[in-house]
């Protein structure tokens, strides 16, 4: 059974002149990390809202096709039920943190499910520790930094004990270091708890290296899926859908057009550096110093 299974899903908002999702099919395996890339208005957020039933239960629109999370049809289960399977983190940390302390924020979900007090306390402790915010229990969320706020939002989702996390442009307000911290946290959850991860971004800069698979989205359709290396090997495909390719890929591309040699298809800094030195050392008159 897959974590997410979408078959020919179309979504249209009232008064819209086209479908926001246009017969989308997508499978995400348990424990898999999928990075969904697309420009503004590609339908990424709509897809996110399907995963825990916000569509069709809260957001009014017409839904065709079938969406199952961990075998549960989202149209037939309440958002509350699905929220114990899928935790969602939105772009703006400011608007999804509404409690007066970090602890209350994390306890809010389990409290709504009428879970025992001791169990809630244990979950709060675990979730705050997992995201590295233990000790900030009584701090008002507004006093936290951007990265801390986003990690608190993740903790608030984690306390529902979901098996999948869906993050809609979680690094929008973060600097590159904050982004890497956030992705490393998710990588840790994936490793330790076999967490399924769906991250939505508008660019692949730091995100690509963490993903198992990348899906490209444009105008309500998934236009391509594949391993990060394969997808990023074609920067023009990214540009075509309005997603800037990672700088490393652009660099490799430029190097290939000017120097020639074997095409560099790695996506991490280390690997690209290694490959560049191979390419360059194959050229006459270039001496490569190995560190």
């Amino acid at each position, binding site marked *: 059974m897959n974590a997410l299974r979408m078959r020919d899903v179309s979504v249209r908002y009232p008064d819209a002149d086209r479908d926001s999702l246009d017969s989308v099919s997508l499978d995400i395996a348990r424990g898999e990390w999928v990075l969904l890339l697309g420009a503004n208005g590609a339908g990424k957020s709509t897809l996110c809202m399907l995963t825990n039933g916000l569509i069709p239960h809260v957001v009014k629109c017409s839904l065709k096709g079938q969406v199952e999370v961990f075998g549960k049809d989202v149209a037939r289960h309440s958002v509350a039920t699905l929220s114990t399977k899928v935790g969602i983190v939105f772009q*703006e940390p400011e608007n999804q943190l509404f409690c007066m302390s970090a602890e209350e924020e994390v306890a809010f979900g389990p409290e*709504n499910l009428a879970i025992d007090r001791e169990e809630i306390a244990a979950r709060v402790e675990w979730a705050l520790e997992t995201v590295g915010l233990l000790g900030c229990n009584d701090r008002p969320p507004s006093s936290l930094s951007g990265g801390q706020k986003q990690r608190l939002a993740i903790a608030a989702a984690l306390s529902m004990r979901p098996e999948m996390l869906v993050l809609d442009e979680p690094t929008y307000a973060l600097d590159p270091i904050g982004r890497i911290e956030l992705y490393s946290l998710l990588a840790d959850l994936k490793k330790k708890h076999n967490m399924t991860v769906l991250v939505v971004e508008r660019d692949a800069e730091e995100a690509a290296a963490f993903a198992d698979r990348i899906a490209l989205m444009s105008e309500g359709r998934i236009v391509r899926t594949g391993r990060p290396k394969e997808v990023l090997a074609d920067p023009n495909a990214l540009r075509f859908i309005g997603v800037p390719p990672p700088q490393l890929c652009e660099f490799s591309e430029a190097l290939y057009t000017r120097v020639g040699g074997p095409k560099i298809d790695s996506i991490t800094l280390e690997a690209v550096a290694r490959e560049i030195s191979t390419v360059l050392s194959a050229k006459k008159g270039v001496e490569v110093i190995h560190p």
Partner: protein
Amino acid sequence: MGCQNMTGFVDLYSEGGTFLHRIDARVKIVAVLFLSVLAFLLSNVYSLTLLLAFIFILLFLARASLSRTWFALRFVIRFMVLIVVLWPIFDPSGTPVWATFGPVKITEPAVWRGVTSAVRVGCLACVWYILMFTTSQRDLVRALVKMGLRFDFGLALAISLRFLPTFSATIDSIKDAERARGMELDKGSLLKRSRNYVAILVPTIVSALRSADTLSLALHSRAYGARADRTYLREPKMRRQDAAALSVVIALLVVPVFFKFVLGVPL
């Protein structure tokens, strides 16, 4: 700046370890209500002054910083002075007449009525300040919910308190952005100035509506409203000292009421 002002105005709470901080917020709410009722029942200026003195002692026991206390008291004192000055001017009843300025008669009973009302207003305001100084918004909302306020109302209250500084910050950045592009918000006639503020209001409301959208999605995503029997991680608990404080509070209302209405002592 604005953000701080706004927060300061809305949240007077300052952390501290005084007994007033430690008492169950429910007891404090009851105390505030009882003392307010008492302030209305008492009509003798001396007993009201005694009550005000008692409230003042509590206010200083709350150990809020002097600047904060002054910030709070400033308004009350201004208001009290205004009452003392204006009451006799608009109330010409009673004798003896102390002075006459054209149609305005200043009488002795009116002056006393003014002072009495001013002291009563002082009591009513300061007693609330004690609560606000010593109780965090979080405890206040929790206490109200525990006292029977519906959870969704409590949540709405908590959310509005939580978002006030956010909106204040939004307004500030919109103002700054408009000023940076040459808008002179505080120039021109009153009408022009109030029109200028429409340019701030519209983007603020738009941004508020957007926040509300995300907020509602976030609430649903965390199973808000899933069950009527929701549990609470932290709940206010009545301890022995809270019970003791509550009995003192009850006595504070009952004893004067007994003396005044049963024994007929003119309190």
